[in-house]
C-alpha cells in the first residue's frame, strides 16, 4: 500500500511566499498584534497634533532655531512605544505558548522562518508608519502655520518613517534574542527612551546627538543598533533550540 498520495496541491506558491502569508495571518488574527498598528499610528498623530496645537514660536527652544518639522513629528516619541511592542509581541507570543515548534516544523529552514516574520512585520508596520507620519504632518502643518511658524516642507519625514520602521524591527530582533516579552520590551524601551533622557540629564548636546531619535544622526544610530539586534536575534533563532 502506498502512503497517502501527495494531494493535488503540489503546485503551490514558492515556499517563502507561504511562510510570509503564514506570518501575515498570525499577525492579524491576534487582537493585540492586530490592534497595535492602529494604536501606534493614532498615538503618533495625537501627540503630534497636541504639540503643534500648543507650540509657541516664542519659546527659547524655538528661538534658537528649533525646527518646526521636529514639532510636527514629535508624536513619534510616543508612537514608537507601540511600534516596539508590536515587534516584540510578534516574536515572544510564539515562545510563550510553544507555537514556535509548529512554526519551525512548517518552515524548517530557519532563516526563511525568521525572514518571513520580519517581512510580515515590515509589511504591517510600513503602512502604519506612513499613516502615522503622514497624519502628523497633515494635521501639524496648518496648526504650526496658525502659530506663525515657517513652512517645513518635507524635511524630517523620511527620518521619522525610517525611525518607526526600525523601532519595530529592533523589537523583533531583541525579542528573538531574549524571548521573554517583559525582558525584550524593557530592553527596547530602555534603548529608545533612556539615551535622550540621559542626554538631558548630563545637559551635554554632544551626547544628545547620539541618542536614537527621528532627527539628525538618530536614524543612523538606530539602524546600527537594529542591525546588530537583528543579527544576534537571527543567530539565536537559527541556531538555538526553540524551547
Amino acid at each position, binding site marked *: 500500500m*502506498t*502512503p497517502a498520495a*501527495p494531494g493535488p496541491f503540489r503546485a503551490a506558491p514558492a515556499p517563502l511566499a507561504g511562510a510570509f502569508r*503564514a506570518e501575515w495571518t498570525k499577525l492579524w488574527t*491576534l*487582537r493585540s498584534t492586530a490592534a497595535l498598528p492602529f494604536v501606534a499610528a493614532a498615538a503618533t498623530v495625537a501627540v503630534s497634533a497636541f504639540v503643534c496645537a500648543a507650540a509657541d514660536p516664542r519659546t527659547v527652544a524655538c528661538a534658537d532655531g528649533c525646527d518646526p518639522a521636529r514639532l510636527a513629528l514629535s508624536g513619534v516619541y510616543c508612537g514608537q512605544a507601540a511600534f516596539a511592542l508590536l515587534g516584540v509581541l510578534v516574536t515572544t507570543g*510564539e515562545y510563550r505558548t510553544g507555537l514556535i*515548534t509548529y512554526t519551525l516544523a512548517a518552515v*524548517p529552514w530557519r532563516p526563511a522562518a525568521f525572514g518571513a516574520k520580519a517581512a510580515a512585520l515590515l509589511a504591517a508596520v510600513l503602512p502604519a508608519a506612513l499613516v502615522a507620519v503622514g497624519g502628523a504632518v497633515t494635521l501639524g502643518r496648518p496648526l504650526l502655520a496658525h502659530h506663525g511658524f515657517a513652512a517645513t516642507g518635507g524635511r524630517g519625514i523620511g527620518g521619522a518613517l525610517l525611525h518607526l520602521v526600525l523601532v519595530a524591527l529592533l523589537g523583533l530582533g531583541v525579542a528573538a534574542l531574549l524571548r521573554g516579552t517583559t525582558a525584550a520590551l524593557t530592553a527596547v524601551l530602555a534603548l529608545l527612551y533612556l539615551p535622550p533622557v540621559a542626554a538631558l540629564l548630563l545637559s551635554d548636546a554632544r551626547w544628545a546627538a547620539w541618542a536614537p531619535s527621528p532627527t539628525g544622526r538618530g536614524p543612523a544610530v538606530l539602524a546600527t543598533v537594529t542591525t546588530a539586534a537583528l543579527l544576534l536575534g537571527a543567530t539565536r533563532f537559527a541556531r538555538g533550540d526553540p524551547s
Partner: protein
Amino acid sequence: MDIEVNGLRKRYGRTIAVDDLTCTVRAGRVTGLVGPNGAGKSTTLRMFLGLTRPDAGTVHIGGTPYASLAHPLHTVGALLDGAAAHPGRRARDHLRWLAHAGRIPRHRVDEVLERVGLTAVARRRAGTFSLGMAQRLGIAAALLGDAPVLLLDEPVNGLDPEGVRWIRTLLRGLAAEGRTVLVSSHLMSELADTADHLLVLGRGRLLADTGVRELIAAAGTRTLEEAYFALTAEAVEFR
C-alpha cells in the same frame, strides 16, 4: 514512508536525554514510543523534526532529513506540546496560518476541523478551550497536510474516554491507509489496544524494539503492562 533513526544522541549538560538510538519506524502500522517520564520520548520526537539539534546521529524521513524536505507539512504531520495555539487566536485562524505555511489549500482547514469535531467551536479563541478540545485542535493541525508520516506526542492527554476511543480508531485508520504513525505515551495501557509495534525507551536508551505480542512472550507475563514494568523497572528513577 519509513523513518530511519541512526545513532541519535543528545545530552543536556550532564544529563543524557537520548543515548545512541537506532531504529526504524515502518509505514502501515501504529508504532508506540513508550517509556517513563523523562525517558527522552519528547526529545526524540523533537529531533525527528529538527527542533532540537542532535549531538550525534541522523534521522531520515523517507530517506531525507526533515530540514531538507521539500514539503514538510505534506510529509510529516506532528502534534507536539499539545496544540500550542496562542490563547488569543481563534481555532480556525490557528489552522489557517499553518495551511499558509505548508501551502495547503484552504478547504483542508474545514475538513480537519470537521474530522476532529471542532467545527462548532472553530471561531472560539484557543484560550477558552478545555484540555481535550485543545488536544483535538493539535490533532487537527497534525492532520492538516494529509501527510504520510504522523508523529503524535502524548495525543491522549486530556481526552475523555470517548475521545480516547475516537483517537484509537483514528490512528488505526491512518495506519491502515499505509501511513507511518508514531505515537508516544508514558502509559502502556493507552497503547495496548492501538499499537502494533513498540519502541520502549528508558533513560534515553532503547530497551526494546519489538512487536506487542513478542514483548509479552519474551517477558513471560500475561499482560502487556506487566511486561512493560518488568522492562523499565531500572529506568524509572529520575536523574
